[in-house]
């Protein structure tokens, strides 16, 4: 029952992997016995004994592990017990094999009467423990590597999702439709719009990959986006961007500001019949950098929980968890009503942490 087909496959796969380390340990043991302990008739004979004992130990211990625990991690105490029992056994069996290979009349009695038997058993045990530690280390490295790969994969997936969310197909196709129109009727404006689209796409694609950008760059990107939107929405959209020159070089993570502005357009101004204005401004208040995105659009749904920790608004939640991870507990994002109409999103980030990045 224990030796099912899958177990046999496991044996065939796992045992050869232990072979090379075992051979190396055997060689080391033979060297140790011959040149440090000065026991035996010579290196050749000692190597033969070491190989026989070592390989037997490997077959018994590794085989026992696979038989009892299969692919799972062995039970620690059980494995130790197995080690203590199988190491001496391997010594005797291995010695018998080696002796018979040499053509000596082999008997257990003869082996146990050679001097230093206890020493050899201890050596075998130590070698087995060494081999086991090596094996465990290898397992741990492998699982660590697997975990790292999984984490990297998740990060890539998250980034892809973010990209998809960012470049909303609806926005892209509508912009292309407008471009198509302008190309024949107003080629100059078409050229200008195409430039802005290229700038927006390039900036969106590259900043979402890089970890750091500056406020100045983010504002250029926002200008391109708002420029595109105002071409499409015409008189329905007015916008203003205020960034003090001394804050232009402030480092900031990408994709924090952009989603707030896109929200203001998508949920605030685009659905509003008369449209409205969008204002983005940055100020420094003592130790905090305050970025405000103010629109005069549809406003917030008064029942929705925008500012609660477990908010159902995925985009906002995403920004919150990111600023928390990047800038610590002082960083916050609030969403409030704008008077007389619309909404205001405000990012407060500690200046010190921003500049330390």
């Amino acid at each position, binding site marked *: 029952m224990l030796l099912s087909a899958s177990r046999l496959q496991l044996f065939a796969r796992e045992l050869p992997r232990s072979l090379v380390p075992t051979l190396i340990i055997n060689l080391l043991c033979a060297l140790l016995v011959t040149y440090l302990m000065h026991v035996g008739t010579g290196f050749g004979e000692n190597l033969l004994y070491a190989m026989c004992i070592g390989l037997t130990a490997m077959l018994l211990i590794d085989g026992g592990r696979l038989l009892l625990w299969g692919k799972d991690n062995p039970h620690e105490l059980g494995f130790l017990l197995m080690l203590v029992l199988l190491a001496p056994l391997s010594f005797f069996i291995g010695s018998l094999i080696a002796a018979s290979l040499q053509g000596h009349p082999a008997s257990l009695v003869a082996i146990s009467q050679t001097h230093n038997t206890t020493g050899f058993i201890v050596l075998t045990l130590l070698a087995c423990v060494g081999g086991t530690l090596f094996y465990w280390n290898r397992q741990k490295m492998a699982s660590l590597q697997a975990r790292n790969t999984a984490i990297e994969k998740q990060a890539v997936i998250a980034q892809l999702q973010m990209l998809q969310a960012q470049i909303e197909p609806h926005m892209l196709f509508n912009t292309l*439709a407008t471009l198509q129109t302008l190309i024949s009727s107003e080629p100059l404006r078409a050229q200008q719009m195409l430039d802005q689209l290229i700038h927006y796409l390039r900036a969106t694609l590259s900043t979402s990959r890089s970890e750091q950008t500056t406020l100045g760059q983010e504002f250029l990107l926002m200008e391109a986006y708002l420029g595109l939107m105002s071409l499409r*929405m015409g008189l329905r959209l007015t916008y203003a961007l205020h960034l003090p020159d001394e804050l232009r070089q402030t480092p900031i993570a990408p994709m924090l500001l952009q989603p707030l502005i896109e929200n203001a357009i998508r949920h605030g101004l685009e659905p509003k019949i008369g449209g409205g204005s969008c204002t983005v401004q940055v100020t420094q208040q003592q130790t905090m950098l305050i970025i405000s995105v103010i629109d005069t659009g549809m406003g917030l749904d008064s029942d929705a929980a925008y500012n609660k920790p477990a908010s159902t608004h995925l985009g906002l939640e995403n920004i919150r968890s990111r600023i928390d991870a990047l800038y610590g507990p002082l960083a916050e994002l609030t969403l409030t009503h704008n008077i007389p109409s619309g909404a205001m999103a405000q990012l407060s980030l500690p200046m010190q942490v921003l500049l330390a990045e």
Partner: protein
Amino acid sequence: MKENTPIRVLIAEDEALLARALADSLQRLWPQMQLIGIASNGFDAVTQALTLQPDVLFFDIKMPGQSGLDAACELTDQWPENQTLPLLVFVTAYDNHAIQAFEQAAVDYLLKPVNEERLRQTIARLQERLKNRTGVANAEEIMVQTLMQLRAITPKTAPERLRMIRATVGNQIRLISVDDIVYFSAIDKYLNVVTVDGEVLIRASLKELLVQLDPQQFWQVHRSTIVRVDAIRSAQREANGKLFLNLHQRPEKLAVSRLFAHLFRPRQT
């Protein structure tokens, strides 16, 4: 319809440049077409359509105010009973689910940016339809069928079936079993929940409520009304052709819109 009668077209599209472009393309490819108006939002679309009585509508799906789909439903509701409904073409930039529905629906749809070859096909299809349009009933059949199909795009899977309605009355919360409700009617952002002996306002939309109700127990009969089937006493057609419901335990009459009139047609055996 005679060959030389102008075909009157209304375009509803919030982006002025795109509206103009569509109008230009139509003018070029369809000389018989006469543009009678451009509406810039979902409400304006309904108002203009009702006043101008066009033959063909091009409605953008995503518009300020209300969507092209909602506008089409409202228009169907309010369209005079004795007039032929206009033919409808939807225009959309990107909408995965809608496109699938459009492909099955009787109505045509265009994707932005609009491809001229595709627009030619649409025009040919419209001309065919305009030629074969025989009487009010046929057009209504097509429109109602289409809109019903398109409405089905909205998710039908309810997270959980609603048993109780919670309504805040003064400083207490009243629990009303759905079995006691006669009908719901939408008023702006609120829903009026009407029972035999009273009514309360709750903050919810008809759309989100509808998916949580048992479709066997509750029917939507109008853009803004859901009624409990057991509370209906009779359906009655008035002199002006409009259909109304009489209720068992309430004196008021509920209007049934064209989209839902089929619910009260006698079953053919």
